[in-house]
């Protein structure tokens, strides 16, 4: 092919322009940063500036009330029941007051109160220590305040488990699949060697559904936007005394406990 000087310059100029536009565009995309949680939300999706949960303890009366909530979560998310505390995986579970509100033990509390189980789950902290320490960003913060876990990026170093002040994280010490009674095909099962925890049912929120535990709680768990002054969580928090676990750590936990009073209060 023959090419004169003029044509060469023309082609070179066009190529240069193309290169410039390409570089500029990719530079703009990279500098902007791509969020793992970035997508076009479904029109029915429930959205919030900062999701939060309120536990209304008075609504948990019988063992069945706790079991229903835990089972709803664990069944939906394919959480295995391995049957020994060493390899245990749990997203939501219970413990008693002195273990839940560590450092606020009070031996003169009413007996029934000392024995009473409290539901526990990930606090989706504003300043989450697990997110801070993760060496691969496998644990990351969404814009709506949810602390997420990428099971495919996690290298299984378990730094996040050492960092979490709430013991909210579980590691798959072995293949969990044989220990799932009935696999739910709409949520992924995990592999051995990765960390997992509560996700505030982000995949349900996207379809306009409340988290499984909230649905199963019959009003014992209230879920909503902490930044919206008209939300139900804000309403109950403004009318009742509430507590958060280890708030003195500066982690900004987003799970609140309303522990006093009768049912009428809420």
């Amino acid at each position, binding site marked *: 092919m023959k090419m004169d000087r003029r044509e060469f310059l023309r082609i070179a100029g066009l190529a240069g322009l193309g290169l410039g536009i390409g570089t500029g565009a990719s530079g703009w995309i990279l500098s902007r940063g791509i969020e793992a949680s970035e997508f076009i939300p479904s029109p029915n999706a429930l959205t919030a500036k900062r999701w939060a949960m309120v536990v209304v303890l008075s609504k948990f009366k019988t063992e069945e009330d706790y079991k229903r909530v835990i089972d709803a979560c664990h069944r939906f998310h394919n959480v295995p029941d391995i049957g020994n*505390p060493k390899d245990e995986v749990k997203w939501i579970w219970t413990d008693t007051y002195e273990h839940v509100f*560590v450092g606020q033990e009070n031996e003169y509390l009413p007996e029934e109160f000392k024995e009473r189980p409290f539901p526990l789950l990930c606090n989706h902290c504003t300043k989450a220590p697990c997110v801070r320490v993760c060496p691969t960003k496998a644990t990351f913060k969404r814009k709506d305040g949810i602390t997420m876990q990428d099971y495919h990026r996690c290298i299984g170093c378990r*730094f996040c488990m050492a960092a979490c002040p709430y013991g909210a994280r579980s590691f798959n010490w072995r293949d969990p699949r044989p220990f799932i009674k009935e696999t739910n095909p709409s949520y992924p099962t995990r592999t051995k060697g990765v960390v997992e925890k509560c996700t505030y049912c982000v995949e349900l929120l996207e379809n306009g559904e409340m988290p499984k535990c909230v649905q199963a709680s019959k009003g014992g768990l209230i879920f909503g936007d902490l930044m919206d002054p008209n939300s139900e969580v804000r309403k109950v928090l403004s009318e009742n005394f509430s507590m958060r676990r280890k708030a003195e750590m500066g982690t900004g936990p987003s799970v609140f406990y309303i522990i006093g009073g009768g049912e009428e209060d809420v």
Partner: protein
Amino acid sequence: MFEKALVGGRRYWTLVAVLLAIIGIGFLVYLKQLSYGLGITGMSRDVSWGFYISQFTFLVGVAASAVMLVIPYYLHNYKKFSRIVILGEFLAVSAVTMCILFIFVDMGQPMRIMNVILHPTPNSILFWDSVVLTGYLLLNIIIGWTTLQAEWKETAPPKWVKPLIYLSIPWAISIHTVTAFIYAGLPGRHFWLTAIMAARFLASAFASGPALLILLALILRKYTTFDPGREPILAVSKIVAYAMVTNVFFFLLEVFTAGYSQVPGHLASFEYLFFGLEGHGRLVPLMWISILLAIVAIFLLVVPATRRNETTLKVACIAVFISLWIDKGFGLVIGGFIPNPLERVFEYWPTLPEFIISLAVWATGFLILTILYKIVISVRESIGPGEPAH
């Protein structure tokens, strides 16, 4: 120069064969861990780091201790260290390799290790730890190899290596500081959340590393033509003495803060380690052995007569090494997890597979050390006695 590692006597090859056998067995057990998962170890939801990470923590200290020979020799021109400074640098190479291997065997998804580089995360201390450890490994390989090569050719080492040697000094401090930061920055772990952690790590490193070096030098003298000389050994023993006393002092500062303030969170792990908590006290005997050995070691190291006597010095060095291995290679990491964040006590003990894999990692480090020291000795034998040219 490496060809010198390929010729050796019966004793050398026996040692290499034994170490390779241990590594082989460990590798097979590791394959088992790879297929079953980390549940093969004693670790649990509550004690989520165990023997592997505590060995890593201890060995970072051994690696950093090379600087205790580099500073006197290169910064203060203390010529008597000329024959042993390379032992420190190659010990660092071996120790850092073990550190990296211990992190690797502790990973749940080891095939994803490159994610640390693919998704670099500067807010994670583990990211910085991988940076400083890799850097320190390279520095010591380059410095040790280049200076030994110069010695072999009986010339002065090239000029470009000097800045690297100076760089290796703060770098050695950095590896143990960053390792301490892994622990000292976690809000919910009272036992680790202490500003003196990095200082305590360094003090214990500068005692355990040089103590091991004295023992290694004396072993080399017994079985090879290598002679470290009496004076360098005495000088290093003083370093061990100062560092060990400093380490125990730092530990007592921790005990005071926890014990006098009586804040339950600060006290709990100490109680678990030294007296047992809620009827659980698996680590109690080990921790008291550590204390006892520390007392014996300090006595033998501080009294001039026993420090200068080679037999008692050996006992002191063994005591320092074991005491600090228990303290940092076991108690410090495990103790931080007990009680758990909900103040419940779940204990930990390594399983047999976990122990065999750890032993194989130690064997790998010792194999690297054996080969590197063999090269050093053969080079020295080939050039004959006398001070190196630089």
